[in-house]
């Protein structure tokens, strides 16, 4: 199989996986009912894996396609706006932290998790014109860190096993 075909199939599979993981996650009961936004972020497992195996461009493509598909399937424009803000800021931060080479997959994933929450809270603050929503960031930092760490540990196993097959050689 040519490198190009392999990459295309892998990215297509990643899109589907990311979509399904976020759908499955939406079916699970919320962890803490009184605070919105606490979640595992299972889709980020796929995004961070693509980021490590291919790069920012590919991870962004998978992430955006997942968002578009979620929007088309479950269509809520407001939810889509939050997801977009979280996804963009978290992916950019992860790409930056990966490039810094200071942290392993776990640190990069933690950054992504917390920044995802931050992006959503910032959108909420702007949309609602209410600064006190920012208080949620305290508890979200805690849960985002823990979720990000778990996702990062899982992703490091995935990447280790997949990189021999999929890592692009440029």
């Amino acid at each position: 199989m040519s490198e190009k075909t392999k990459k295309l199939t892998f990215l297509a599979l990643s899109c589907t996986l990311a979509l399904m993981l976020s759908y499955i996650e939406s079916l699970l009961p919320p962890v803490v009912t009184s605070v919105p936004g606490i979640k595992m972020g299972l889709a980020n497992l796929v995004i961070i894996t693509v980021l490590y195996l291919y790069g920012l461009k590919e991870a962004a493509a998978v992430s955006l396609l997942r968002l578009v598909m979620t929007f088309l399937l479950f269509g809520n424009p407001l939810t889509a706006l939050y997801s977009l803000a979280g996804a963009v800021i978290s992916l950019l931060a992860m790409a930056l932290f990966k490039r810094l080479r200071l942290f392993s997959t776990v640190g990069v994933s933690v950054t992504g998790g917390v920044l995802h929450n931050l992006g959503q809270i910032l959108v909420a603050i702007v949309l609602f014109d209410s600064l006190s929503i920012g208080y949620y960031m305290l508890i979200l930092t805690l849960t985002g860190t823990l979720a990000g760490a778990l996702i990062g540990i899982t992703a490091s196993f995935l990447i280790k096993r997949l990189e021999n097959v999929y890592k692009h050689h440029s």
Partner: protein
Amino acid sequence: MTSRLHRARRNDILLIASLVFLALVGILLSLFLRRDGAYCVITKNGEEVGRFSLSADREITYYEEDGVGFNTVRIENGRVSVTAASCPDKICVRSRAIRYHGETVVCLPHGLVVTVYGDEEGPDIIV
């Protein structure tokens, strides 16, 4: 190579520890410094639609522009909560009742925010 991995691991732990520490300090501070609320302000898409004292029990329902979607806000025993809503996720309904200055209940799908405020700026409260 191994030393870089080692350093990265240590940095990971430092990052996680400092984030958890900062969040915990922030949560403790906000618990410590919180003060009772006197009234609540309800906004829809950033515009104020209601302002009520917390000392009188009442129930208000806010409808969406389509006349079907709604959020019911209840004030009871000095606490505010959203008791019923037509939004898909029901996060606002599940949120616990709030009573301290700065606390909010948010309904993202309907753009509704209930915020509790302290007593220093209350001349135009409807009692």
